[in-house]
Each structure stands twice: as C-alpha cells, then as structure tokens.
C-alpha cells in the first residue's frame, strides 16, 4: 500500500467515529414523509401559507434587493448581478421571470449548481432595533430620511450589511447557463478565475405599525476585473432569467451597465411600472392578487423602498412627504 493509500485509509478509519449507532425506522420515516407531503399539498390547494409566503417574498423582494440583493437567491444573484462591474446602482432594470424559469433556477440552486466558488466574508441582514433616527444615522453613516406625513415611526431598525466574493469557474458557469436554458458560449474565456466582489451596506428600516415600511441603504458596490465585458455578461444574465436570446441582446445593448441593477420580478406574482417619485424615476411593484405594494428608487447614491400592506395607490402621495 502506498503512503497515499495508507493516509486515505487512516482518514477513513477516523471518520468511522462519526457513524450513527443506530438507524431510524424507515417505516416510521416514510409514514412521516407521507404526512408532510399531504400537508404541503393541502396548503397549496387552500391558497394558504405557501402562497402567502411567496407573495410576501415577492413584495419583500425589493427590500431584499436593496439590502441583501446578491445573497437572497443563489442562482439569480450569482449570475444576474455579480457581473456588473464596479459601480454604484443608479437605476433599476426590472426583468420579468416566468414561474417555469423561477422553478428551474430554484432547482439548480437546490442541486448546488453555482458559477464558481462563493465566499461570504460577512453575512448581511442582522437586525438591530434602535431608539431614534439619529442613532440609526450614527450606526449606518446615512443621513436618515423619514416619511414626515406618517408621523414618528413605531419601530426603527438597523439592518447589517455584508460582503462576499465570487471566484468564477468558467466550466461551472457554462454548465449553469446550459442547465438554465441559456447559451453557454456567450461567456468569454477571460472570465475564468475572475473574482467579483460585492459589498452591501447597512441600511435603516422604519415602520409605522404594520401598514408602512420605509427602507434606505447606500447603493451596493460590485467590483469586477476591467477586462470583463459587462454587456456580454449582462446578456448572459438576461438569458439565465429566461429572456429570449434576441431580446436579451437588444436589452443588453440599451442598458447602461455601469450603473444599472437587474431586478428579476416573478411575473406570476408581481407587476411593475415606471413611476416618478422623490424627483427621480423609480419602479412601482404591485402584487397581482391582494393588497400591498412597494415603490423603489435610487437617489444620490441611496436606494429607497417604501412599501405598504394596504392600498398601493396611496404610496406616491405618502412618498411626497419624505424629508
């Protein structure tokens, strides 16, 4: 036996210590599985918790986008946004994603397919309640704005930022693209081994009971090598999101990739339209069923999101009282 084989054998013998002493009953496990499957079918049939959870996810998508956009949805985050160069988000490009494509990307994420090695240096999203807007400003460095027309917020929280790095593996990235129905040959050879670094900054969330929520955070940074062609990568990202190749090319040519963030919108749950808010152009998001909605915009290097569980039509008027 060679030294290497001996080392492998010794290691495997050490790992034997991890084996379970006894196995659970397969019969009981299968009975439990059947019960869980029946319960999950019932939830879907009743349009209950699973659909509500997905709707909340859709409405809160922009919130996740603002503060943890690149860490909430593995396949989308890694392909759509991580290739967009060193920039601060200046505007959004909403892109519809169909239920079928969403399911495909979810499955690929569950299977662990990724375009490279993702390292999260600091996990974003930790929430800390604070007592005042000035305290929130001190913790985040923001000049915190508020919705004066709603009065004092009932809750103020600071949401921690984070950062991570993606080292691109061209083979894996192409495999992911192919599995997602996109053209893997779009990706140029020179991105192999390239590192993309993403930083999401701390933000402030203000709530007025459960009716209105106002989020603000500095725009995320994405840092990528200069020799990477952002337009081509953007076109690849659009295809992964399910955009037809010709349309993806047309959109990619017309987007200013130096400052635009792709915003995947699940088409079965949410509609979007461009809207004027706070003196700039933003996006209004509304669920296809039920109440609630959000306004999303960027101004002076800060991303804002104003959301409601009530009537979306009131949001533009509410937003007028931002101070």
């Amino acid at each position, binding site marked *: 036996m060679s030294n290497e084989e001996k080392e492998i054998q010794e*290691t495997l013998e050490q790992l034997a210590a991890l084996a379970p002493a006894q196995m659970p009953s397969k019969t009981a496990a299968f009975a439990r599985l059947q019960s869980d499957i029946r319960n999950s079918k019932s939830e879907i049939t009743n349009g209950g918790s699973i659909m509500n959870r997905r709707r909340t996810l859709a409405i809160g998508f922009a919130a996740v986008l603002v503060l943890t956009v690149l860490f909430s949805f593995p396949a989308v985050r890694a392909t759509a946004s991580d290739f967009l160069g060193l920039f601060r988000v200046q505007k959004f490009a909403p892109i519809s994603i169909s239920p079928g494509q969403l399911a495909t990307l979810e499955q690929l994420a569950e299977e662990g397919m990724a375009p490279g090695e993702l390292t999260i240096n600091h996990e974003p999203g930790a929430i800390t309640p604070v007592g005042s807007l000035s305290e929130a400003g001190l913790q985040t460095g923001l000049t915190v704005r508020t919705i004066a027309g709603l009065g004092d917020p009932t809750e103020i929280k600071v949401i921690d930022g984070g950062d991570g790095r993606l080292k691109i593996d061209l083979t894996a990235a192409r495999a992911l693209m192919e599995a997602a129905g996109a053209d893997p040959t779009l990706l140029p050879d020179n991105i192999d081994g390239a590192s993309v670094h993403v930083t999401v900054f701390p933000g402030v969330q203000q709530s007025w009971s459960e009716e209105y929520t106002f989020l603000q955070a500095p725009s995320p940074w994405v840092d990528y090598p200069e020799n990477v062609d952002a337009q081509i990568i953007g076109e690849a990202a659009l295809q992964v999101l399910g955009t037809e190749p010709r349309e993806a090319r047309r959109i990619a040519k017309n987007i200013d990739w130096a400052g635009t963030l792709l915003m995947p919108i699940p088409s079965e749950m949410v509609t979007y339209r461009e809207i004027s808010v706070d003196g700039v152009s933003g996006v209004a998001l509304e669920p296809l069923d039920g109440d609630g909605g959000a306004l999303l915009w960027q101004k002076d290097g800060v991303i804002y999101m104003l959301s409601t569980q009530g009537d979306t039509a009131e949001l533009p008027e509410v937003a007028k009282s931002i101070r």
Partner: protein
Amino acid sequence: MTTLSDSLLLERIQQGDIDSFEALFSRHYDRVYGLLYRLVGNRAEAEDLAQEVFIKLYKHTSRRRLFRLNRQQNISAWLYRVATNAGYDALKMRKRRWQRDTMLVPDPAGGPGAEQTVAAQEEQARVRAVLARLPQRQAQLLLMRQMGFSYAECAAACEVAPGSVGTLLSRAAAAFRKEYEAIANDQ
C-alpha cells in the same frame, strides 16, 4: 426477484405510483440519513434534513418536464448532492447562531452508545470540527468513501471525473490530516 433501476422507479413515480416512491425511499434512506448524521452529528436534525431531501425529490418528480429532461441523470447522485447541501446549509445556520469555533453539540441521546467515553466523544467532536474546515467537496468525498460508496458513485455525486477520485481523495486525506493536527495542537 427483479429489482427495478432508479430510472425505472422514477418513471413510475412520475405516473403516480406511490409504491415506487416508497421503493426509492427505502433504497436510499439509510445512506442519505447516514451522510446527514455524519455531517450534523444530531439524530433529530439528521432525520429532519433527510425528510426535507425526500420531500424535494417528491416535489421535483412532479415537475415532469424537468425530470424528463434529466432522466438520464443519476438520481442517487442527485440525492446525495442535495443531502450534502442540506447538511451544510444546516451547519451554516448553526454558525449564525453560535460562535464560529464552537464544537458542534454531540447527540445527547444516541450517539455511538451510552457507554461512549468522554475521550471518544471529544474525538468525534474533533473529527467533525476538522471536516467543517475542509472544502465541501473534499469533506463529501471522504464521507461518502468512508460510507462505502464506490468511486463511480462518489464521482457522480461530487460531479468530478471518475478517474480523478483517487487523486482527490488523496488530497482530501492530506488536508484532513493537516487540519486535524492544527486542531489537536490548539487544544
């Protein structure tokens, strides 16, 4: 008695045959659970995670278009890949609650025997801590090989060329040795 292949069972499951799903479950449950237990070291958690893996399998078999396209794929490789990811996701959730260097909590009621010595429990915790320091693919290869998976099965689950498994195992063992000595020296 004829044993149906995983692919044939999958085909029957897609036609609504629950007995075939139970057969697939029985065939793979022990190894899925065993892999998860080795990762997380806790029986209840490993059982919960195993349930999640098979629920995912059930849900994906109902997405006929996707699984028809992927029918030629190795279903067992898919299962162990998903199980490994589930185990690592669970470990990441733990690390968000605890300090990064905390030793994982040993199974209170059913680790390897009530008569297990303190030294044996410490060794188990040490081995698990070493595994946590290795890249996921290296840890997965070592665990699957230790569980008796063939080189071909390891290759399929880890998405590597079958011919490279030996070399990758050797590197993984060397990395394990290095981390083990580092941890032992720290203590």
